[in-house]
């Protein structure tokens, strides 16, 4: 009895210790996010060193510095952080849902579907009756992107998953087919687009935070924040789903309901981020993979830390995109592709058996 008590005490202590360690990890990651954000604020053309940034932040300094910091760099920094978090979390949710570490919204056409929705809203938005256009206003592009991403995810799930099992080959091939189909429709829209719209279309295909503004951010941020808050509540169900749909059902998970929520979450978060930055690839696959190496595949950690690490990665990618060919800028999508492509190949080399599943 005494021995049993001692054991349980030790275990309780270990659990407490684990909690404290997790908390300090979380705090240090948050600190890194803040530092990366601060670095980004003081980086770039125009203003100025850190003291100017600080001055502008507290409302001092020149008007020019204040405009640069508050109206250009701040929305851009927040956009990079939120979109990074959203891409990483939607990648992790999608991988849990498809029970497959290679599922990434960018790879399997969901981002393309969302981008297509956004482009439809841009090109055809002019045809909307004025009253409708005024009513939906700035939210029409994120909403259309959400619908596009949602339909693509549903299609993909219907094609690639049978009896609760997703074949990697079918999923990737279905992604290619959907991407080609979306490409065809995009081509049609490009054909009918005017010059202004053409510039917007090019922006979608590359992915960039350079056009970030408070207006765009305020249209997408509520949806992104909502999905970031919702995703951790899926963690237990996604963990159970690792055993397969039947086993998750036997563990008391309402599998159908949970799948619907997960698909909506992915679509909303991809739609909202695509609407503001266009398609940025590989965040959704790089971040969850790195985290699984460090903390294991438990989704409870994955979905919270994933948001933070996603924010860090995109903030850093944005910093790189501004200094590589300064004073000009690379679109951030190109930076992520240059980092993420080789990384993805490395995952493939390490896990060839995954593709044969």
């Amino acid at each position: 009895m005494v021995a049993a008590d001692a054991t349980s005490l030790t275990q309780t202590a270990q659990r407490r210790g684990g909690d404290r360690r997790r908390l300090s990890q979380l705090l240090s990651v948050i600190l890194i996010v803040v530092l990366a954000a601060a670095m980004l604020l003081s980086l770039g053309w125009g203003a100025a060193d850190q003291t100017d940034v600080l001055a502008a932040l507290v409302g001092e300094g020149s008007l020019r510095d204040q405009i640069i910091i508050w109206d250009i760099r701040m929305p851009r920094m927040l956009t990079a952080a939120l979109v990074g978090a959203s891409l990483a979390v939607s990648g992790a949710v999608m991988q849990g849902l498809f029970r497959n570490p290679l599922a990434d919204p960018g790879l399997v056409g969901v981002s393309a579907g969302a981008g297509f929705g956004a482009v439809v809203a841009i090109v055809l938005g002019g045809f909307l009756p004025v009253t409708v256009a005024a009513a939906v206003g700035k939210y029409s592009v994120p909403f259309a992107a959400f619908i596009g991403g949602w339909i693509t995810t549903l299609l993909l799930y219907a094609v690639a998953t049978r009896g609760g099992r997703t074949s990697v080959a079918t999923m990737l091939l279905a992604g290619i087919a959907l991407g080609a189909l979306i490409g065809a429709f995009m081509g049609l829209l490009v054909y009918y687009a005017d010059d202004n719209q053409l510039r917007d279309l090019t922006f979608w295909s590359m992915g960039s935070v350079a056009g970030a503004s408070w207006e765009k951010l305020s249209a997408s941020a509520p949806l992104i924040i909502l999905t970031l808050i919702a995703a951790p509540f899926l963690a237990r169900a996604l963990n159970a789903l690792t055993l397969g749909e039947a086993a998750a059902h036997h563990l008391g998970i309402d599998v159908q309901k949970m799948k619907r929520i997960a698909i909506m979450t992915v679509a909303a978060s991809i739609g909202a981020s695509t609407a503001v930055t266009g398609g940025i690839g590989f965040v959704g696959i790089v971040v969850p993979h790195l985290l699984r190496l460090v903390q294991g595949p438990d989704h409870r950690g994955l979905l919270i830390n994933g948001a933070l690490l996603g924010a860090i990665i995109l903030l850093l990618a944005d910093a790189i995109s501004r200094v590589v060919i300064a004073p000009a800028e690379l679109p951030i999508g190109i930076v992520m592709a240059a980092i993420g492509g080789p990384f993805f190949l490395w995952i493939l080399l390490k896990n060839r058996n995954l593709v044969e599943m």
Partner: protein
Amino acid sequence: MSLTATDIHVKLGRKEILHGIDFAARAGEVTAIVGPNGSGKTTLLRAITGELAYTGKVQINGQDCASMKPHELAMTRAVLPQAANLAFPFTVLEVVRLGLTAGLASSRPDTSDTLPLQALARVGLTGFEGRYFHDLSGGEKQRVQLARVLVQIWEPVLDGQPRWLFLDEPVSALDIGHQLVVMQLAQDYARAGGGVVAVMHDLNLTAMFADQITLIDAGSVRAHGTPQQVLTNDTLSAAYHCKLQVNTPPPMGGAWILPQAAHLN
């Protein structure tokens, strides 16, 4: 308290696999479902556990399963699958802890740390908790899954209601020693007041551990009763389409089924 399935029909595609099966099991007993390959025994288990769509009625402890919520079902019964692969590199302990997802355990934090380790000890896997699940052999994976299922319904009787353990070929990947460990564990669960329903291939293990046997053949019940009633030369030979000799060797006292190869006749 019991489990009853009445007039169960299951269709897969256009083909009807089960043609109106009646099945019953009592708490406190091990009930085995046996039958030749493709007879529908696993299909019957999947229908009873709600994995497959069926017509008919399944009741657990007098409650209609169709009207129970997933988490209520998860508190009442647990299901050991035939084989499972994980998509992500979970450790053994993390897999067993998934059994705590079913609800109750999260409201009793004092045992949620010790229960998974106790369950691993029951299936003979003490010391395996830190290993990766996908590095284990087939038989070890099967026992980890059994530990997870045990964690889910640890007490055989809860609030006066028996809980139900469904096992789909629980010993198919196991060596002869662990076959006995697992079957003994199932029998102990039943003796402690729980209900056990197991789909079995091995007729001799069935004869040793089952209290009741349902013999399924071509989607219908061919025989139901005690081992003495079901395990007879004529019944088995007809169901399995081969000559089988049922003996009762003195040291065991139970039935022992010997296949009779054609060249021995």
